[in-house]
């Protein structure tokens, strides 16, 4: 088993347990009483409100499932939105998710306090009612448990949820026997005393009971077989919970007439009525049933609050990884191995929310819902962006049915439901959104280097879209590079001690010229038969050679005034890993040896063509072992790759004092226009001081003949795919290969390939 596999230990049942355990909490145990009596009495119609809530949750669950299987990463909603819509919306989503969870946890704590008050007499403190006191105690315990990281075993969690479901099932059965349709419908005003218009405001109130399914996605990286288990768990838990809610609320209202339903602990009250006072000789059954329901409510709210606090730490981690918040927040406690700072900050927010807003449970529950709904809406938009931009990395195992109707519906329903909230919750959530945007511009914009797929998409279509759109995308784009260093990253793939020094010289000159840094990597190809784990364990010998090579690289780079980092990468793949490493390290230029391109060996596969047609950054491939730079020749006919050649030549001229000559091979009789072109090109590329040469004849032959006079020839790829042809050895480059002078091949991904990448195949 690879380490990847070992880290995955959540099966389908565990995943479902997380979803159901989080959702079944204060919402169903507290809100039915509030909802039926809301706005002068909505009445039994609230059953429909719960079902509508379930439908909205289900539409969003489909989108979360698709995004989750495409990107099983810690962070969930925040991560998808940051990746698709960029860090400004990412900041909104991260803040929204985080604050939404804090509000939800405060709400769960209040729910806990309400049921606790059934058991014990809680004191009041000036400014706080008894329930708030109970909630503060409960909230502090939840925070403490997470801070210490006291482990509940997976077994216990499953048992708790199982117990909860059984308690609710028994209640439903008992309720079924005491169910009286007259109790449900026989009150003043019938089934809908407040009219059918009360349905959606009811949904707005109870939607908090459905927050939780998205938590499964925040731990997606820990799921076994996420492609299958994630959608089943998310969609399944929403379906199960919706059915449970519909049955429970109907039962409650068929047992206790709705105007009399308790606003604090309705389930305990209904149980008291539903169960007979005595069964045979046993008396006090009803009281015991109410007590059991109360214990169930306490368990349910506690597990919801716990899961939410944990999920908020995940979101903080994901935001820290993208540098939207400081990583200080995500430090791990030395003894408890918990992200204690994140938990304390979230805990502080929960305590404040309980103390300031806990008098009115509606504000807490609705604020939690509004913030989550904003995140859901953005998530649906993000899904559409991923699909439309056709990003190659975006490859979900589960896709939403009826695209694009489902995500559009999800976004519309989510925002639509927000409209049924009250002004105060919308204002409160709006304030957090504004704060998130302000945070992005004041803090995160300079730090993060994450660019959304959306802004790439807009920028690549600059010509087709109105200026305002492009301008807006630029105005909010991140300015940070993630690294301390602001300049480009020049990645060197060293593989051979003989060529190492030449490659580092080129990279060092470039990095110094551009004010960037050098990243020297040694990619060690491990045979497929050997697992990477084994290879890593037996790497003593390998480490030594690798370390020596990289140490030499570092020493060579010292000649330049640039920061250097070194890395050894173990991989089953050869050249593909170079591409991967370039992507993951955000390299701007890759410098590698000609021999290095060969280490694909016999394993040239179909995907390689695709890879090399889709360069992640500029590539410089050196054919030659030693460099003794005094003068360089740059043959050019224009084009993006020769722009790169010019940049390299400029860097060598400015840092090493190398003389630059430019060569244009013209057809005979056209020397004059050739000279004009070359002079213009030289001026346009900051090489006006270069020696200009115009020759006639066959291009390759001329380069071969003239090149011999120089210490380096820099050849730009005149067409895309040059690199792929070198790798496969199909390029007839004999003249140049036979040249004694070292040759540097440069290839820059053309604008067209980016366009193709984004719009591929359409």
């Amino acid at each position, binding site marked *: 088993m690879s*380490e990847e596999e*070992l*880290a995955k*230990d*959540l*099966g389908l049942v*565990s995943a479902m*347990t*997380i979803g159901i355990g989080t959702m079944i909490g204060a919402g169903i145990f507290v809100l039915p009483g509030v909802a039926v009596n809301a706005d002068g009495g909505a009445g039994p119609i609230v059953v429909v409100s719960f079902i509508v809530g379930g439908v909205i949750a289900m539409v969003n669950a489909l989108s979360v499932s698709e995004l989750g299987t495409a990107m099983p*990463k*810690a*962070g969930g909603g925040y991560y998808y939105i940051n990746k698709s819509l960029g860090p400004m919306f990412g900041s909104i989503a991260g803040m929204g998710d985080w604050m939404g969870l804090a509000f939800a946890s405060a709400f769960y704590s209040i729910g806990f306090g309400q049921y606790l008050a059934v058991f014990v007499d809680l004191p009041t403190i000036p400014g706080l009612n008894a329930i708030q006191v109970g909630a503060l105690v409960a909230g502090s315990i939840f925070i403490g448990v997470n801070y*210490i*990281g*006291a*482990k*509940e*075993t*997976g*077994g216990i*969690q*499953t048992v708790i949820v199982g117990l909860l479901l059984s308690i609710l099932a028994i209640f439903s059965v008992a309720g079924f026997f005491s169910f009286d349709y007259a109790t449900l419908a026989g009150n003043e005003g019938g089934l809908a005393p407040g009219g059918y218009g009360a349905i959606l405001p009811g949904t707005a109130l109870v939607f908090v009971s459905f927050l939780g399914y998205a938590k499964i996605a*925040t*731990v997606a*990286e*820990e799921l076994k077989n996420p492609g299958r288990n994630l959608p089943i768990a998310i969609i399944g838990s929403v379906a199960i919970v919706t059915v449970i809610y519909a049955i429970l609320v109907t039962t409650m209202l068929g047992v206790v007439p709705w105007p009399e339903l308790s606003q604090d602990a309705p389930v305990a009250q209904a149980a008291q009525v539903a169960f007979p006072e005595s069964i045979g000789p046993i008396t006090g059954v009803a009281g015991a049933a109410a007590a059991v329901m109360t214990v169930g409510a306490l368990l349910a709210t506690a597990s919801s609050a716990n*899961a939410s606090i*944990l999920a908020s*730490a*995940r979101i903080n*981690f*994901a935001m820290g*990884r993208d540098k939207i918040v400081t990583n200080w927040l*995500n430090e*791990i406690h*030395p*003894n*408890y*191995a*918990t*992200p204690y700072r994140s938990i304390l900050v979230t805990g502080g927010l929960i305590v404040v929310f309980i103390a300031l807003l806990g008098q009115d449970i509606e504000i807490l529950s609705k604020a939690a819902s509004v913030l989550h709904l904003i995140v859901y809406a953005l998530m649906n938009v993000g899904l559409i962006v991923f699909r439309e931009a056709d990003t190659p990395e975006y490859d979900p195992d589960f896709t939403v049915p009826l695209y694009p109707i489902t995500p559009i519906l999800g976004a519309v329903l989510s925002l639509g439901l927000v409209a049924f909230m009250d002004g105060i919750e919308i204002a409160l959530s709006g304030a957090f959104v504004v704060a998130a945007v302000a945070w992005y511009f004041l803090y995160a914009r300079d730090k993060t280097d994450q660019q959304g797929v959306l802004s790439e998409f807009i920028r690549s279509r600059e010509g087709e879209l109105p200026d305002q759109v492009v301008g807006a995308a630029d105005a909010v784009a991140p300015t940070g590079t993630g690294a301390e260093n602001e300049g480009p990253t020049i990645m060197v793939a060293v593989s051979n001690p003989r060529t190492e020094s030449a490659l580092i010289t080129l990279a060092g000159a470039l990095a110094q010229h551009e004010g960037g840094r050098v990243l020297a990597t040694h990619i060690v190809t491990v045979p497929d038969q050997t697992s990477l784990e084994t290879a*890593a*364990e037996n790497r*003593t010998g390998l*480490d030594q050679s690798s370390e020596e090579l990289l140490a030499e690289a570092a020493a060579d780079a010292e000649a330049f005034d640039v920061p250097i980092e070194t890395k050894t990468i173990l991989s089953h793949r050869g050249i593909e890993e170079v591409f991967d490493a370039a992507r993951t390290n955000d390299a701007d230029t890759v410098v590698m040896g000609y021999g290095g391109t060969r280490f694909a060996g016999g394993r040239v596969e179909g995907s390689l063509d695709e890879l090399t047609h889709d360069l992640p950054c500029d590539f410089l491939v050196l054919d030659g072992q030693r460099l003794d730079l005094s003068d360089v020749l740059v043959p050019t006919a224009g084009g993006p790759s020769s722009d790169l050649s010019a940049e390299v030549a400029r860097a060598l001229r400015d840092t090493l004092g190398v003389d630059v000559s430019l060569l244009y091979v013209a057809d005979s009789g056209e020397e004059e226009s050739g000279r004009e072109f070359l002079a213009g090109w030289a001026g346009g590329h900051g090489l006006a001081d270069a020696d200009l040469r115009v020759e006639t004849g066959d291009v390759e032959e001329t380069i071969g003949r003239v090149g011999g006079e120089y210490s380096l020839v820099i050849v730009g790829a005149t067409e895309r795919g040059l690199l792929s042809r070198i790798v496969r050895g199909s390029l007839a480059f004999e003249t140049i290969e036979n040249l004694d002078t070292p040759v540097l091949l440069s290839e820059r991904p053309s604008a067209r390939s980016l366009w193709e990448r984004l719009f591929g195949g359409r």
Partner: protein
Amino acid sequence: MTSTDETDERDLLGHVLLPVAHEDDALATARALEPYDPERVTALHVVEKGEGVPDKTPVEQSEELAAESYAAVRTVFPDADEHTAYARDIADAIFDAVDEVDATAIAYQSRGGNRLVQFLSGDLSMKLVTKSHVPVIALPREGSTE
């Protein structure tokens, strides 16, 4: 698995398994072991898994922590090997790792804390010394009195 009569012949410090929790802990533990000049060292980090519930920290963060810890050990023992285990029970994972890397002893440094803290976070020291099938070396804590 090594049978007991074979262990009789083995050098106690032939191959020391060094469980480390985080960067500082790794550095302190490695420094405490340094004077005894072990022949071979394998640094072990156990990523605590929930096995049914979400972990305390994201996997990615746990693995970062492991990498930092190994790097810290290597500042003292440059040739140290590394081994990452994923388990809910840290002590059991350490014992499994002993067999996997064929270590001759476990060297660790108690992370202290009062009884309550040790009880709550699971008393690792107690489990290590009472259940191990190879010798367990308790390294002295820096600054502790004789």
